[in-house]
């Protein structure tokens, strides 16, 4: 078991965003988190990646605790996320965006950079090549020299995934990557998620598009009011009475 979340609790004032959430996300699998708006999915992402600290509970990745780490330290451990709202570096080119994503693949510090020299130049060349490979993987190679902020929405969402892939995650957390995409773009995204998985990267996915979730997930966890109400294979969760109640109400 790769990522293990145990009894997470986080309250915002009187609202329990997470009320004792426990689940596991296996390596080499696609695990999806579903649940109505406000169920605590994004809060859970924020806790796992160090943006929020839980009041109780534990997050373990490959048997080391992640609680208390800052976001960049979580990234150093191979866990990289995307954001629900479109999030790129708008003023620089698409290639520069991915190069920023590749930050952890380089090692030149400020002194090395000032001295320059062959090692720094080689690293730079290596990073640029890696960036172009990532861009080819997500299908944005033709956009490499365009300014990220000028890309259409669908391509910006792909770029987000490219930035995250640049960081060479072993576990990739995608927060509603298909939100707002048209049919063609959604198909491209599904294909991309398949290619990412083939590279041996585990995925934890938050998504409202049920057809997408049920089509690609190995394991589905349903949250409601900060608690896990159902988990299992897609086919089981889909017909689980608690899931139907969470989405449709009990009236």
């Amino acid at each position, binding site marked *: 078991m790769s990522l293990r979340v145990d009894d997470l609790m986080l309250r915002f004032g009187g609202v329990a965003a997470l009320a004792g959430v426990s689940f596991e996300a296996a390596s080499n699998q696609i695990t999806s988190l579903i649940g109505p708006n406000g169920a605590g999915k994004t809060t859970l992402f924020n806790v796992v990646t160090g943006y929020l600290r839980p009041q109780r509970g534990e997050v373990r990745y490959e048997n080391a605790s992640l609680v208390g780490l800052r976001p960049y330290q979580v990234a150093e451990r191979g866990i990289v996320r995307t*954001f629900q709202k479109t999030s790129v*570096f708008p003023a*620089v080119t698409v290639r*520069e965006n991915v190069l920023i994503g590749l*930050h*952890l693949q380089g090692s030149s510090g400020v002194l090395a950079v000032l001295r320059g020299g062959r090692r720094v130049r080689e690293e730079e060349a290596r990073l640029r090549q890696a960036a172009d490979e990532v861009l080819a993987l997500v299908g944005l190679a033709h956009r490499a020299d365009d300014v990220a902020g000028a890309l259409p929405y669908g391509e910006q969402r792909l770029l987000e995934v490219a930035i995250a892939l640049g960081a060479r995650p072993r576990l990739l957390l995608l927060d509603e990557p298909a939100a707002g995409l048209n049919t063609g773009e959604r198909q491209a995204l599904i294909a991309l998620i398949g290619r990412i998985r083939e590279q041996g990267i585990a995925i934890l996915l938050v998504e409202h598009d049920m057809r997408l979730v049920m089509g690609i997930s190995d394991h589905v966890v349903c949250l409601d009011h900060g608690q896990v109400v159902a988990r299992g294979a897609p086919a089981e969760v889909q017909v689980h009475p608690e899931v139907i109640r969470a989405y449709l109400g009990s009236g």
Partner: protein
Amino acid sequence: MSASVARLALARRPWPWLGPLLVGIVLVAAPWWLPNQYHLHIAIQAGIFAILAMSLNLLLGYTGQLSLGHAAFFGIGGYTSALLGKHLGWPVFVGMVLAVVAAGLAGYLIGRLSLRLRGAYFVLVSLSFAGVVALIAVNWMDLTNGPLGLPGIPEPAIAIPGLGEFSFRSKESYYLLVLACAAVSYFVCHRLVCSRFGRACVALRENETLAQAVGVNGTRYLVVTAVVSAAMAGAAGTLYVHYTRFVSPEIFLFSYTVTMVVMVVAGGKGTLLGPVVGAILFTILPEVLRAVTSYQWQMLVYGILLILTIFFLPKGIVPAVAGWWRRVAPRPAAATRTVAGEAEAHEPAR
């Protein structure tokens, strides 16, 4: 040089180093083509302000953090080498190096104190730090001679074995010293900005939340940038006091910081050339105005020109010229070298 010649040269770019080389020759030769010592004096001031503006631009332009206390690092650099040279009689160049170190340490202190929270906190902490340092300079009479200042600061000199001592007493030699320091500062900025380091800084400016998600340790990069920036401002400070041969608490005046911000913003923040162009223009402008208008009109015209610049070129002079150049002389995409942070000129819709 006619525009068409320049256009042809850039379109093919057979010798990319040709332009910088020519600019370098013109700058080095300035003592011989400038008509008199007054013009050389302005050139020295422009060089010192160019270093200051480049230093502020590292923080403001590339990490997005505004230091309103940059005059503090300028003054710390100035006072450090002035005191070492005057009170302890240390060689001026040793004092100058230590001035850069002292300003860098001050930058580290301020960075550690405020860059964890950054944004408005950094603005306020840097501003108050400048106030505190100025008060020390005014009130520690025994050390600094208070508001009267320290006159008689020695000029830099180097002993060349076998040739005797060479002193930078003449304006010509001092200009070349300032030019060399400005060139080193530009080189440092260039190396930092066009690297993994500079990309991390730009990432923090553009989208800090996302930068952290891919492993950028925000505080660390901001503190290192603050150290480099402060050290560079310290270098400008030490060059300034050994030029005027005098230092007083006026070196900490807020107006120095404001001038730096004006130069960076008007020249084009987040570009390598912007602060240099801004520094040259806004050093020359007051002198030109002094020559052509009466005293009452000087600051008014200066203010109006500044407002017009910001209004019509909101991204600054250099990005505007670069954007115009791209439209007149389109080049294949492969030849366009983008520097991190040098955004394509996207004029906001008006």
